[in-house]
């Protein structure tokens, strides 16, 4: 039970980082901590069998896929912001009406 409580506490830290983080990168780190802690909880919850390890592996891969997709989308958002700035340098008002994830938290 102790490893599970420790992993749960780490997951809560990840949750706090995710919600407190202003920059996208920080939030992805927070989500990764949450995901890692949840996978660790799963690893200590099940019996020590091959099925458990496959379960943990499958879960970790799926979560990692979601994190990677979130990172790719964030990069694409950055890319569109730069393209927009390059094309239309004076359109500050559009940016204000359409806040990015970073800007939206401020």
């Amino acid at each position, binding site marked *: *039970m102790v490893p*599970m409580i420790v992993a*749960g506490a780490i*997951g809560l830290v*990840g*949750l706090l980082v*995710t919600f407190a983080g202003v920059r996208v990168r920080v*939030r992805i780190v927070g*989500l990764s901590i*949450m*995901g890692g*802690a*949840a*996978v660790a*909880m*799963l690893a*200590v*919850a*099940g*019996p020590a*069998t*091959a*099925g458990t390890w*496959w*379960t943990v592996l*499958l*879960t970790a891969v*799926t*979560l990692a*896929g*979601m*994190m990677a*997709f*979130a990172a790719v*989308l*964030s990069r*694409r*958002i950055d890319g*569109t*912001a730069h393209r*927009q700035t390059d094309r239309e340098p004076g359109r500050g008002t559009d940016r204000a009406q*359409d806040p*990015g*994830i970073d800007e939206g938290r401020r």
Partner: protein
Amino acid sequence: VTSGSLVAVTLPVVVVSPLLGAAATAVTRGNARARVALIAAVLTTLAVAVLSVAVLTDGVTTLVLNNAVGLEVLLVADGLALAMVTMTAITCSVVAGFAAAEDRAHPETRHERFWPVWFGLWASLHLLFLAGDLLTAYLMLEAIGIAGAGLVTLDGDRPTLLAGTRYLYAELVASTTVLAGIALIWSRTGSLRFADLEPGLVTEPGGWLALGIVSAGLLLKVPLAPIHIWLPAAHTRAPSAVSPVLSAVVVKSSFAVLVRLWFVSVPELVTRSAAQLLGALGVVAIVWGSVLALRATQVKALIAYSTVAQLGFLVLLAPLVQAGAADAWRGGLLYAVAHALAKAALLMAAAVLIENAGQPDVDALLGAASRRPLAVFAVGIGGLSLVGLPPSGGFVGKWYLLVASLQTGQWWWVAPILLGSLLTAGYLLRLLKPAFATDASPRPATSASPPTTTSTFDGRSGLALALALTTLALGIRPVEMLELLDLGAPLLTGGP
């Protein structure tokens, strides 16, 4: 399950068929891709129809699929699963026709990855609804999240990417929360099968905590107000063939897992206060979503906020089923099916109307009834079901919920159901009123995407209307769906 029986054969086919659709559309190109997609959609829907008839004949069926490394997938074909799978198949097959028509009408917007991701989403939905264990359900929720966000962000302008990213972030927070709860459940029960959870969770300390953590994650995934913030933007910005499936079917995925967990798997652990709290959140969702829909200025935003409100009606089944009302089980789930059919029809019709108007504003629908009568008719029929007027499926669902409220003595749910229905009528009339008004002014010159289809009766409007009419069919003859929902229902022997 008897190997070789019709159910044993069709159960895996229902999951594999859309996967084959994904593979086939990934290797085909051009116009052939849409034809292959339609064939896969029809075959999948036929497989679901055969499975539903077979299960109605044979009763609840369970199928265990094992592999060499010790992983098992448990498929359960009961009433809840089949109602949701039938809803998914009908909605997805009609929306697939709509997407194929969009491909023909606007080949320039055709996206290479649309059809494979679309069928991947469809297969994940089927496996989720049929899953007999928490782990499979969790993995499919992940797959649905990835596919959903992928479809939203196919067209990569900045606001769409922002909406899709927020959707994915919310999914990630919810997923990790659900996973932590699943780990706790596993440590308490030693099993992840829905059917084996109750003894361990009821007797072991911390069972309620594990259930609470999983439930919180699932409610964020649904999403239930006030944690619905990501939904309107994602559903509004999604491509016109994606919004209907997100608003109609994807929102039911976590809801179905929650219902199975609470009332089929561990009903003894669900306390009256927890169920009442969920019902209260449902009332908040009804009022909050309706007010936002009444204030929305754009057509798709109005319908997206309507989804927030309608999800509130669905969770009203919780306090009533907890009190032992079998009618609440039937009404809540039948309303879920009716809502899916009506909402998908509304969004498909909205896409046609927005394209015809050239802009997304509600005011731009002025005179739409004369230009796109079928689409406006679809909005009217779908709206009938959402409001809950006879003879629609929405009426039957709400009627059962009202009866269950009075049967269980929980009269305080009657007012939100009736008030919510009035509010629904109010915001849907905002779409219909300008559509039937006379358009005396010249068409706006700021048309963002001028219409390419000149015919008043285009195929996409016809598909939207056909789907809307299925909600009427469900209301006129709900017997088969109600029989299906009774299969494996938890409370039919213990009514009030």
